[in-house]
């Protein structure tokens, strides 16, 4: 009984507080590494312009095609642009685009998942079968198809992320809703006369959050990958934007002479994707470890 001891500290740290999640993430080496990488790239995205030694599209013809050196850490490309600056400045581009896209995908996935799972029946069938048909297509193929229709633009890439990932998020949310909605506390909430909105978002959603956080971080890492892939294929973000995938594509033609112009952006993609993945895995362990929702 934890209730009658007024001598106990009044500050109860609930299991799901942000602080303790971070602490748990840093308790494991792998997830600590992943989280550090992710936070580092977020930092780059925020203060990239302060750190980058050169302008984004500043061309220094005299320094073109240079190998990595003290003045150009990552070397320069065939147009004389500083690769290091472009990689740093590219962090903001790719993280905001994939982050915002993931956020929108999560929002729509949660909405569809909650409605589909809670109502069940025909509505559920309709929504889920439609999503199944979307999932039946390879993600990249679907993305190319959509971009073919929408035309290459930043907003199109965002829409692609939403369309590709909404079904996956909705599935995860729905599966949790299905197991939660028959619980006595949901029935108790109904019988207390709570409105549908309150039941969905106040009673059920908190139970979905752990699974959702894991899924969202995983989706985020795949979204980074997708944005880079689309950039590489030349159908997403257009030059001269510092999209890492686009940079890899541009450097591809000169790979034998200027390999650094390809390696560094490609490495950046790999590192950030691995980092976010490790973090997602760490989140999953935190919640599976049973700290939340007994």
């Amino acid at each position: 009984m934890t209730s009658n001891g007024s001598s106990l500290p009044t500050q109860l740290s609930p299991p799901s507080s942000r602080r303790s999640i971070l602490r748990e993430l840093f308790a494991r080496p792998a997830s600590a590494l992943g989280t550090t990488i992710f936070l580092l790239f977020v930092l780059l995205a925020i203060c990239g312009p302060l750190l980058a030694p050169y302008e984004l599209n500043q061309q220094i013809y005299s320094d073109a095609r240079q190998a990595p050196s003290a003045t150009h850490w990552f070397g320069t490309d065939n147009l004389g642009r500083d690769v290091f600056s472009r990689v740093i400045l590219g962090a903001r581009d790719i993280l905001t685009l994939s982050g915002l896209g993931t956020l929108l995908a999560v929002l729509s996935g949660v909405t569809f998942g909650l409605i589909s799972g809670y109502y069940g029946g025909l509505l559920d069938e309709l929504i889920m079968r439609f999503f199944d048909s979307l999932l039946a297509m390879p993600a990249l193929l679907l993305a190319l198809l959509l971009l073919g229709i929408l035309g290459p633009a930043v907003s199109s890439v965002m829409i692609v992320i939403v369309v590709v990932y909404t079904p996956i998020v909705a599935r995860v949310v729905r599966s949790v809703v299905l197991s939660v909605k028959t619980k006595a506390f949901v029935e108790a909430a109904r019988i207390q006369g709570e409105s549908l909105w309150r039941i969905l978002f106040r009673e059920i959603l908190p139970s979905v959050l752990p699974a959702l956080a894991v899924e969202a971080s995983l989706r985020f890492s795949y979204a980074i990958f997708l944005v880079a892939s689309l950039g590489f294929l030349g159908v997403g973000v257009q030059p001269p934007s510092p999209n890492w995938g686009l940079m890899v594509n541009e450097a591809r033609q000169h790979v034998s002479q200027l390999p650094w112009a390809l390696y560094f952006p490609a490495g950046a993609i790999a590192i950030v994707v691995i980092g976010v993945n490790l973090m997602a895995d760490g989140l999953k362990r935190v919640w599976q470890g049973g700290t939340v929702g007994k």
Partner: protein
Amino acid sequence: MESKPGLLHVEDLTVAYHTGAGWLEAVRDFTLTIAPGQTYGLVGESGSGKSTIALTIMRYLRNGRSRQGAVWFNGRNLLTLPPHDMAHIWGKEISFVPQDPLSALNPSLRIGEQIAEVLRQHLHLDKKSAAARAIALLDMVRIPDPPRVAASYPHQLSGGMQQRVMIAMALSTEPPLLILDEPTTNLDVTTQAAVLDLLRELIAARQTAVLYVTHNLGVVAQVCDRVAVLYAGELVEDAPTHALYRQPLHPYTQGLLDSVPQLGQHKAQIQLAAIPGQIPALGQRPTGCVFAPRCPLAVEICHAERPFLDTAAAENGRFVRCHRWPEIAAGEGGVKKEGRRERKREEGRGKRRREEGGERRDCCRWRI
């Protein structure tokens, strides 16, 4: 139709469940009237249909259907009310306290938030005043250090605390009717007594009408003004609590009272009289009185003809469904059994005690 008496009037209610063997009637011709501010105990064994009745009144019955009858609440028949209107009655006009508080509380929401949800829904309070009110409600149910408990999660509280939280939630909207479904069954005896004391005090202060569903006769004696005894889905006796305990008119009620151990009795003094046999399966109800196969007083007519709910005493509203109740009331014709005589002797002792300790002590004898 004549005006309906009371706050809640359940009229000739028959509820059936659909099973592989067809429709089985779990509750048959059930009638009950609860006046405003009255506490009513609904007593019966497991499977006697008491929870079915509670859920039917709430219109929250799963896979069961009310086939006949009506549930009048404030002049409206709840059974024919559109679902949308029912949602306004839930929690606002009729509150329900379930048996297991832990599973009824959301594990991922803090106590304060959960209470505030109800307040915001029904009383349209803003976030801040709802939170303040939630803490006041926790204080009302005598939870120590309410701000801290409000910030806790359900699993961090003891069972008694959880049930107090449920009661606080149920009473937060000041509903005219409160339905309690065995709210103290999972609690230990001392906690149960404390929760019952609290409950009695709260409902008396608010004049809340209560339907208290339980299998525990002791609890009923402590809390309720009137008792309805249910057997195999039928109302067998309906009487004021003290009258029923002083002189049960239905053999089943007698059997129930005899099978309750009493405080201050040595095991050598009395043998608990268990009722032989068991409650009949829903599909195999006897044609006559449902209790006849187990009844020590059953005669021919009991097996042949189903008794109707008879008015035994009009002045205080006693109803009994038994062919032989007049004989039982008069104590004639060998209707007294060994166990009964034993109990009578006990009652004499109780009377003495009552003279010493007042009316309430008498009821407390029945606490298990």
